[in-house]
């Protein structure tokens, strides 16, 4: 009897131990199993920090769901490779150029339904204009970044980037992979040709920009500017303003010809099984309090015109109809149709 009991106890002990072990490992999944999951994309850095710490958890708590964020770029090839009926993301957050490509491939819905996203009524017109797929929740101004300690003097025009005194300390972007680079190429057409679509003028202008140091994303450009590797560069205002209070010898220049718009756009995938939640997320991201918190953390200009920022942010960001009217939006549909040939050409131009 004792032996049987002993054997049984051992068996029970082993079974209980195994169950406990498996249970411990599986517990978080089981606990979350009932919560619907919204799969989104998002940036890293300060954006990722604030989303992870505050904005995301508040959404999860209010809508009783889980947010699963992919911040490992590039997003579109992953979406392209996933099934249309069961896409890898429910909400795609990326810049306008990629959103247009996604819409052309039928990977995202071209427009957000205002009935399902009431906050859409409060956004500036540019955020839902015919230049935008989905809705732009924030925008940055693409202009010039300057080292203030090099004695370059006051800069007012984009054309000063071509000045020979910036040879060796001029910075730009890898045009095939970066929105800022692509928008800047269109600006070159405006500056030296007949308009955004004057590619020949743009190519000629790019040739004359050499020697130039090129990077693939803004974080790299920020580091080049901070280290003094570049003295004058193409950059968006957030890339300069986010160092506010750190006494960095850098400043942002809004050129007289206008600043280009770098939009943070949200779209919903047609095959999403979480449409209601996806629309709720878009609406949530447009809420004035969410917009204010993010704008004052990452220095992006809010799309909701009802947002009232603190004076320091209000002075620098695009927070009035007059300011946003200065934004130059790029015709990404036109650009994407020619992207392949443009990439081939600019790769040749910038080769060493």
């Amino acid at each position, binding site marked *: 009897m004792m032996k049987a009991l002993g054997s049984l106890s051992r068996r029970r002990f082993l079974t209980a131990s195994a169950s406990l072990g498996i249970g411990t490992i599986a517990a978080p999944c089981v606990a979350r199993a009932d919560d619907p999951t919204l799969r989104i994309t998002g940036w890293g850095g300060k954006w990722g920090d604030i989303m992870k710490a505050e904005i995301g958890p508040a959404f999860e708590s209010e809508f009783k769901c889980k947010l699963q964020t992919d911040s490992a770029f590039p997003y579109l090839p992953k979406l392209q*490779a996933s099934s249309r009926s069961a896409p890898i993301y429910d909400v795609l957050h990326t810049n306008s150029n990629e959103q247009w490509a996604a819409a052309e491939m039928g990977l995202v819905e071209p427009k957000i339904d205002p009935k399902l996203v009431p906050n859409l009524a409060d956004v500036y017109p540019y955020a839902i204009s015919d230049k935008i797929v989905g809705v732009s929740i924030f925008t940055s101004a693409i202009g010039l970044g300057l080292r203030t300690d090099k004695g370059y003097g006051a800069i007012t025009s984009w054309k000063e980037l071509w000045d020979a005194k910036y040879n*060796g300390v001029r910075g730009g972007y890898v045009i095939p992979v970066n929105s800022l680079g692509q928008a800047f190429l269109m600006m070159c057409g405006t500056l030296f040709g007949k308009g955004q679509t004057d590619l020949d003028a743009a190519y000629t202008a790019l040739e004359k920009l050499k020697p130039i140091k090129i*990077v693939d994303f803004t974080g790299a450009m920020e580091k080049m500017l901070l280290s*003094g590797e570049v003295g004058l560069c193409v950059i968006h205002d957030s890339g300069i303003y986010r160092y506010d209070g750190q006494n960095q010898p850098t400043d942002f220049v809004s050129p007289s010809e206008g600043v280009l718009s770098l939009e943070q756009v949200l779209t919903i995938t047609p095959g999403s099984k979480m449409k209601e939640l996806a629309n709720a997320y878009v609406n949530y991201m447009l809420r004035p309090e969410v917009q204010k918190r993010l704008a004052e953390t990452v220095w992006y200009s809010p799309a909701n015109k009802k947002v009232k920022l603190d004076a320091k942010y209000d002075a620098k960001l695009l927070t009035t109809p007059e300011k946003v009217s200065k934004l130059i939006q790029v015709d990404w549909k036109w650009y994407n149709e020619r992207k392949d040939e443009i990439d*081939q050409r600019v790769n040749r131009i910038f080769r060493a």
Partner: protein
Amino acid sequence: MSSTATTRPNGLALFILPSALLFALFFFLPIGLMALMSVLTGNPVVMPKVAFTTRHYARMIGDPYYLEVIWTTIRIGLVTTLVALLIGYPLAHWMARIKSRTGHALLLMAVLAPMLTGIVVRTFAWMTLLSDKGVINETLLAFGLISQPLKLMYSETGIVVGLVHIYVPFMVLTLTGVIGRIDERLEQAAENLGASPLRAFIEVTLPLSLPGILAGSLLVFALAISAYVTPILLGGFQIMTLPILIYQQISANFNVGFAAALGIVLLMISLLLVVAYNRALGLVSGQRELQ
């Protein structure tokens, strides 16, 4: 009776089967899919109508730019391999022949130590040395030896420096094993017969270490032509290689078919060079083929 014996499953075959299946799943299947994608007009998983096409290869052959990219990739691979061999061979020879166990251990640690740090970190370290505001240029400027920063980065030279630093350990470790197995008494015999140490090395040790040179060179070459991070960071996006072009085609142009075709070309380059190198060294070493 004999028929029963022939149908009995081979024990060794059963033992190898799982690894063969894994190899097929993770090696042949992806390459097969890549080859298939390179001759299709689109992705059949998400597109209802796709057809066979040769347009991706035609585009590559028809545009001198892509041929230039292929040649740049091969050139960087060849130079990296040659420099790694020139640096690695003496070190490997020293390691293989050193009598002191402590000395061997210290040399081995010196070779392995850089491999404990990631490639990205090591490349960033080279950037702090080679950039315009880097240690080398700033020092030379401070001493008045140069008036303008030297162009150490954003060039093929910068890329090769970074790649050699990263891949020399692969060359050294491969060569050390081969050189260590060469009987030293053969060299001594040559010297006893009147050969100088240099001649004994050239006529005895060097030919016998050719399999190691072959293996190390192929390893370094294959790694160098498929490198992505170092050419991007040290080349400053101004030196285009096949891996960078492939990434660009997938991430920004969403052109999987063309990227697959570029990938197949990269694979073919490696295979062709393996065969050619194998034959050339076989002829040099007096064998028809090195096994």
